[in-house]
C-alpha cells in the first residue's frame, strides 16, 4: 500500500520558485491499479520521486506499506518495484546480467535468485533475449528488460512512471497483461500517465493531479459521473479546469 | 694526446731502474684499524672518481701459518658496475710493479675499464705492502731533486736507510701471501668465483692465484705477461728490441726518416758521450721557472728513454728527444722528467722485497750476461736492482712457487709487440702451459694492451663469452703506429700520413 499525505514541494532557484506539489494526498491500495493522471508539469514525477526517497517533501509524508520513506528510505525501497519514466539500460551487460544485478541489489542470492530470474524471464517471454547485450534492443525489448529488473524481486508495490510512452501496441499489451496479473496477486500498482485510454482501460482508481494538487479521484466511471461527461478525457479536461497539455 | 699519457700505460711497470731515477715518494698513510671486525665496507670517494664507490678493509693474519698472530689490514676498493642487474661475476684487478697499489689506479681503471664496468664490479685490492695495506714505503730524508740527482748516485746506505723505516715481518710480504689476501677478500665479499685481470707483474700474481686457488677463478686475462719462468729484471733484450723497432718505425716513416736520417748513430754517439761523463746544463726549472742545474748521466738518460718506450704516445717523442739531446738540447728530457715527477706510486719497499727474493736469485750469471748483450742499455736496470738486493733481507719462497702453472681456466693472454719489458715471448711461455688459453699479440702496442679501447673491447668480449679462441681481434689492425713528433713545434708533415685511416663506423 502506498500512502501520500499532504505533500508540499517547492523548487527554489534564483529567478523564481516553482510550486511542484501543493498538498497532494492519495492512497494506492493493494490489489488495485491506481493511476495518476495529470498534464505535463502537474507534479507527477516529483510525487513519484518523493515516493522513491530521491526528493524530500517540504511538508507531508509518503509511506510505503506504512514505512516512512524519509525515515527509512532503504527499507521502503525494498518494497518497491520501479519502472522509471526514462528507462536506460546498461548497454554493455546482457539482459540476464542486468536483471541479476538488480536482484542482487535487492539482496537475493543463490537458488532463490536464479529461480526468480528464470520466473520473470518466462513470465515476460524473454528467454531469447536473455543472453544478448542490451545495446541495440528495440523499445519493446528495453521495456521488457526494465520491467523484469523492476519485478524480479516480486515487490509488493509497483510504481510505473509513464510506462507506455514510446511502446508499440504489442508491448503495451504485454505490459498491461502483466500488470493485471500482478493486481490479481494482490500487489499494489501505482501508475502515472497522461494517456487517457490507458488509464481508463487499466486503472481501478484514477487520481487526477493538477498544479500539485489532487483535482479529483475515483474509478474512471465515478470521475465521468463527477464531471458529468461520458468520456474520461472530457471529464479530465473539465476536472483540471483547462485543456492545456492534454495528450490524446 | 697528452692526457692519455697518464692512462693505463702506467698501470703496471716492471722497470726498476726507472723507479729509482724518479723516486718521488708520495705520502702513504698507514691504515690504522683498531676494529676487531674482519670486514668493513662503506661508501667512499677515491681520487679522480666523481661517483661514490665502495671502500673496504679486511683483517688478515700477517703470517698465514699463525692465524692468531699479528694481523694486517688489507685495503680494497670496489668500483660498482653501472648496471648490476645482470648479476655478472666481478673482475678482480691485479696491479703491476710489484709495488703498485691497485686502489691508487682507481681513476685510470674507472675510465679505462669502463666497458667492463658496465656490467661488472671491479675489485681493486692493495697488495700487502702497497697502498693502505701495511705499505712498505721508504720516505726519502731529502726530497730528491730529479734534475740534479742521477741514478748512479744511488747508494747502499739509501737502501739501508729505507729498510730502517719498514715495519712488519718482511718475509711475509711475498707474492703467495698477497694471493692469500686476495682470495680472502674474494671470500669475504661472498663471491664464489671472480674473473681476474693481471697487468704486468699482476700477471705473475694472477698465475700464482691460478695455481693456489684455481676453483676461485672463473677466467683470467693476462696482459703483458711476466711468467714465473722469466725472472723479473731481465729487461735488457726486450728494451733493446722495443727501441730498435722504434728506430725502424721512424726509418720506415718517410717524414721521420727525412727529419732524423741518422737517429741510430746519434743515439750511439750520445750514449758514448754520457758514458764518458755526465753533462750538466743550466735550464729553467720546468716547474719553478728559476735557473737550475740539470745533470744528465748515462743511466738517467737511458732510464728516462726506456720509460718512454712503454706507451705509444710517449714513443712518438723519442726521435725528437734523442735528436735534441744529440744537439745539446736537454730540455725535452727535462720536460719528460717533469711529467713523471711524483707520479710513480711504486711502493719501493715491497718492490725490492719481492724482486730480491723471488726473482733475482733465479738469474744466473749466464742469463745476466746474455741479457746485457744488447745495444740499448746493456745490463743497466738489472745492475741497479742487484745493488739494492745485496743488502735486502732474504726469505725463501715456497717450494711450489716456481712451478709452471697448468690449469684449465679459460685464459686470455695479451702481449704488445713493442713492449720493452714483457715481450710476446713471455706470453708464449705462459700460453704453452695453459691448456685453455689464447695468445694475442697486438702489433702497434707497447706495454699493456688494455691501454687501448680495442684491447678493452677484446677483454670485455672474452669475459662475456669465455671463449679465448673465438674473439674478434680485428680492431687491433686499426691501431696506428707511432705518430712521431718531428720538430719542436710539431708536425712538418706535408705528404701522406703514415696513420692508417680508421674505418667508418656506423
Amino acid at each position: 500500500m502506498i500512502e501520500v499525505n499532504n505533500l508540499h514541494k517547492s523548487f527554489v532557484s534564483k529567478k523564481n520558485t516553482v510550486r511542484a506539489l501543493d498538498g497532494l494526498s492519495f492512497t494506492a491500495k493493494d490489489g488495485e491499479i491506481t493511476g495518476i493522471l495529470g498534464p505535463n508539469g502537474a507534479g507527477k514525477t516529483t510525487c513519484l520521486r518523493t515516493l522513491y526517497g530521491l526528493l524530500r517533501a517540504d511538508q507531508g509524508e509518503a509511506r510505503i506499506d506504512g514505512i516512512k520513506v524519509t525515515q527509512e528510505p532503504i527499507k521502503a525501497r525494498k518494497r518497491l518495484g520501479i519502472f522509471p519514466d526514462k528507462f536506460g539500460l546498461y548497454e554493455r551487460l546482457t539482459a540476464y546480467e542486468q536483471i541479476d544485478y538488480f536482484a542482487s541489489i535487492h539482496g537475493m542470492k543463490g537458488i532463490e535468485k536464479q529461480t526468480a530470474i528464470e520466473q520473470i524471464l518466462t513470465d515476460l517471454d524473454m528467454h531469447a533475449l536473455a543472453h544478448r547485450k542490451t545495446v541495440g534492443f528495440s523499445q519493446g525489448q528495453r521495456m521488457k528488460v526494465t520491467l523484469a529488473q523492476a519485478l524480479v524481486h516480486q515487490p509488493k508495490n509497483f510504481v510505473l512512471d509513464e510506462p507506455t510512452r514510446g511502446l508499440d501496441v504489442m508491448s503495451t499489451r504485454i505490459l498491461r497483461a502483466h500488470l493485471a496479473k500482478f493486481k490479481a496477486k494482490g500487489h499494489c500498482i501505482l501508475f502515472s500517465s497522461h494517456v487517457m485510454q490507458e488509464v481508463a482501460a487499466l486503472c481501478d482508481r484514477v487520481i487526477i493531479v493538477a498544479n500539485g494538487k489532487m483535482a479529483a479521484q475515483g474509478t474512471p466511471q465515478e470521475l465521468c459521473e463527477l464531471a458529468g461527461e461520458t468520456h474520461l478525457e472530457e471529464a479530465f479536461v473539465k476536472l483540471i479546469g483547462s485543456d492545456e497539455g492534454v495528450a490524446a | 694526446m697528452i692526457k692519455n699519457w697518464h692512462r693505463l700505460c702506467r698501470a703496471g711497470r716492471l722497470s726498476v731502474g726507472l723507479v729509482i731515477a724518479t723516486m718521488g715518494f708520495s705520502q702513504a698513510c698507514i691504515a690504522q684499524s683498531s676494529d676487531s671486525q674482519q670486514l668493513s665496507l662503506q661508501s667512499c670517494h677515491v681520487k679522480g672518481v666523481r661517483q661514490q664507490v665502495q671502500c673496504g678493509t679486511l683483517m688478515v693474519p700477517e703470517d698465514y701459518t699463525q692465524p692468531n698472530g699479528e694481523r694486517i689490514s688489507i685495503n680494497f676498493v670496489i668500483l660498482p658496475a653501472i648496471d648490476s642487474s645482470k648479476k655478472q661475476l666481478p673482475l678482480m684487478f691485479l696491479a703491476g710493479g710489484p709495488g703498485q697499489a691497485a686502489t691508487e689506479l682507481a681513476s685510470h681503471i674507472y675510465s679505462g675499464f669502463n666497458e667492463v664496468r658496465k656490467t661488472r664490479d671491479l675489485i681493486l685490492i692493495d697488495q700487502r705492502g702497497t697502498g693502505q695495506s701495511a705499505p712498505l714505503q721508504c720516505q726519502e730524508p731529502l726530497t730528491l731533486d730529479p734534475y740534479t740527482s742521477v741514478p748512479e748516485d744511488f747508494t747502499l746506505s739509501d737502501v739501508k736507510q729505507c729498510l730502517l723505516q719498514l715495519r712488519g715481518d718482511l718475509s711475509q710480504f711475498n707474492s703467495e701471501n698477497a694471493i692469500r689476501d686476495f682470495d680472502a677478500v674474494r671470500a669475504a665479499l661472498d663471491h664464489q668465483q671472480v674473473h681476474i685481470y693481471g697487468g704486468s707483474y699482476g700477471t705473475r700474481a694472477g698465475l700464482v692465484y691460478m695455481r693456489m686457488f684455481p676453483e676461485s677463478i672463473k677466467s683470467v686475462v693476462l696482459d703483458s705477461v711476466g711468467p714465473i719462468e722469466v725472472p723479473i729484471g731481465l729487461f735488457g733484450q726486450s728494451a733493446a728490441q722495443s727501441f730498435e723497432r722504434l728506430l725502424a718505425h721512424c726509418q720506415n716513416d718517410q717524414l721521420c726518416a727525412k727529419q732524423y736520417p741518422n737517429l741510430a748513430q746519434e743515439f750511439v754517439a750520445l750514449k758514448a758521450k754520457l758514458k764518458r761523463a755526465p753533462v750538466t746544463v743550466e735550464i729553467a726549472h720546468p716547474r719553478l721557472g728559476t735557473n737550475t742545474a740539470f745533470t744528465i748521466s748515462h743511466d738517467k738518460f737511458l732510464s728516462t728513454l726506456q720509460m718512454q718506450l712503454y706507451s705509444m704516445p710517449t714513443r712518438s717523442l723519442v726521435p725528437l728527444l734523442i735528436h735534441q739531446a744529440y744537439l745539446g738540447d736537454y730540455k725535452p728530457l727535462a720536460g719528460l722528467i717533469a711529467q713523471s715527477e711524483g707520479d710513480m706510486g711504486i711502493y719501493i719497499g715491497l718492490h725490492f722485497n719481492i724482486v730480491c727474493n723471488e726473482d733475482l736469485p733465479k738469474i744466473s750469471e749466464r742469463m745476466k750476461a746474455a741479457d746485457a748483450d744488447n745495444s740499448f742499455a746493456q745490463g743497466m736496470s738489472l745492475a741497479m736492482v742487484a745493488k739494492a738486493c745485496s743488502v735486502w733481507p732474504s726469505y725463501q719462497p715456497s717450494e711450489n712457487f716456481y712451478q709452471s702453472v697448468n690449469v684449465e681456466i679459460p685464459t686470455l693472454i695479451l702481449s704488445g709487440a713493442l713492449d720493452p719489458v714483457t715481450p710476446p715471448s713471455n706470453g708464449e711461455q705462459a700460453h704453452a702451459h695453459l691448456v685453455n688459453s689464447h695468445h694475442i699479440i697486438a702489433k702497434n702496442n707497447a706495454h699493456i694492451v688494455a691501454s687501448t679501447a680495442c684491447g678493452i673491447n677484446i677483454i670485455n668480449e672474452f669475459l662475456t663469452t669465455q671463449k679465448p679462441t673465438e674473439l674478434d681481434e680485428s680492431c687491433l689492425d686499426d691501431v696506428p703506429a707511432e705518430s712521431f713528433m718531428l720538430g719542436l713545434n710539431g708536425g712538418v708533415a706535408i705528404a701522406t700520413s703514415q696513420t692508417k685511416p680508421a674505418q667508418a663506423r656506423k
Partner: protein
Amino acid sequence: MMQLKALMVKEFKEAFRDKRALMVAMSMALLMPVMIMVMLKVAIKEAVDNPPVYVKYSGAQYAPKLIAALENKNILSFAQVPADEKRNWNERNIELTIPEHFAEDMAAGKPIELILRADFNEKSLSTPIRRIKTLINEYSLSIGYKRLLVRGIDIKLLQPIKLLEQDTALPSSNAMMISLILGVYLMMAAFMSGLPVAIDSSAGERERNVLEMLLCQPVSTLKIVLAKLSCASAIAIISIILMLVLTSLAMNFVDLTKIGATFSIDASTFAILLLLLVPICLLAAALQLLFAFQAKSFKEAQSTVTMLIMVPSFIPFALMMMDDKPAWVNWLPISGQSLLMEDVFKGLAVDWSALFFTSAATIALTVLLVWVLAKRLTSEKVVMSLS
C-alpha cells in the same frame, strides 16, 4: 556486503567490456615505455654514439695528421659519403677550410686559422659541429702541450687548480632523467588511467538514464560510490603495473650503460612504488567521480575532469622548483609520493614514516571525498539534474 559485491561486479564487467575506454585507460601504460625508449635511444645516440659526419674539406692535403685524427673520430671527408646519404650531407654542407701554409705555420709556431663554415642554427648539425670543434680543440691543445714539454716546461703548470669532484649521489641516480620522467608519468597514469571509466560510470550513466534507477534502489549511495571508486582505481592500478612491467621490458632494448646509467625495477622497488601509488589511484578516482558527478553532461565532465591532470603533473614540477622544501610537503598527498618516488629511484632507503604519513593523508582525503560524494548523491541537486 553482497550488494557491494554485486555493484562492483557490474562496474568491472562494464569497464572491461568498454574496449574503447579501456584502450584510452591503458594507452598511457602502453605508449609511455615506447616513448621513454625512443627518447633514450635518441639521447644515447646524441651523447655517445659517433655516427659518421661528412665534412667538405678544402686543403685537406695540407694537414694529413689532423684529417687522420678527425677520421679516427669518424669525422670523414665528403668524398667518402655513401650515395644514399649524399643528398643529406650536401644540404648540411659543413665546410672546413685548411690554409695552404698549414705545415709551414705549424713548424714556425705561428697560429693557424681554420675556417669551419656551417649553419650553426640547424639543429641536426649541432652534434656534428660540437664533435668537430671538440676534436680540433683537443688536437690543438695536445700539440700545444707537446710544444711546451719539449721546451722543458712542466705541462702540469697549465692546470694550476684541479677540481676533484665528489658526487654524493648514489650510483643508481645516474638514471635520474629516466626516473624523473617515469615518476611524472606514473603519477599521471595513476591520475588519468581511471578517468574514462570514472566519467563513464558517473556522468555517462546519468546520461544513459540508468543512474536514477540505481539511486531508487535499496542501496546506500556510499556503496555505489565505493563500487565505482574501486573500479576506476583498479583500472588505474592495472595501468601502473602494466607501465612498470613494460618499462622494465623496454629498458632491456636500450643500452643505458653507454651513458653511465642503469635502470631496473626489482621486486622490492616494484612493491614500494605500488604502495606509494595505490593511494594516489584511489584519490584520483575519488576526485574524478566527484567532478564528473558535478558536471552537467558527459562532455562537461570530460573537460573538467581532464583539468585534474594538471594536478599530478604540476606538483612534481613545482617541487623541483622548490629548493627549500618545508617538511609538510613530505606528508601531503601527491607531493609526498613524488618525493618518495624520487628517493626510490635514487636508490635511497625508503623513509617509512613519510610513506606512512603521506599514504595516510592521501587515504584520509580519499575517504573524505567519498563521504562528500555519497552525501551529494542523496542531494536533490543531483536528482534534479537527472532529467
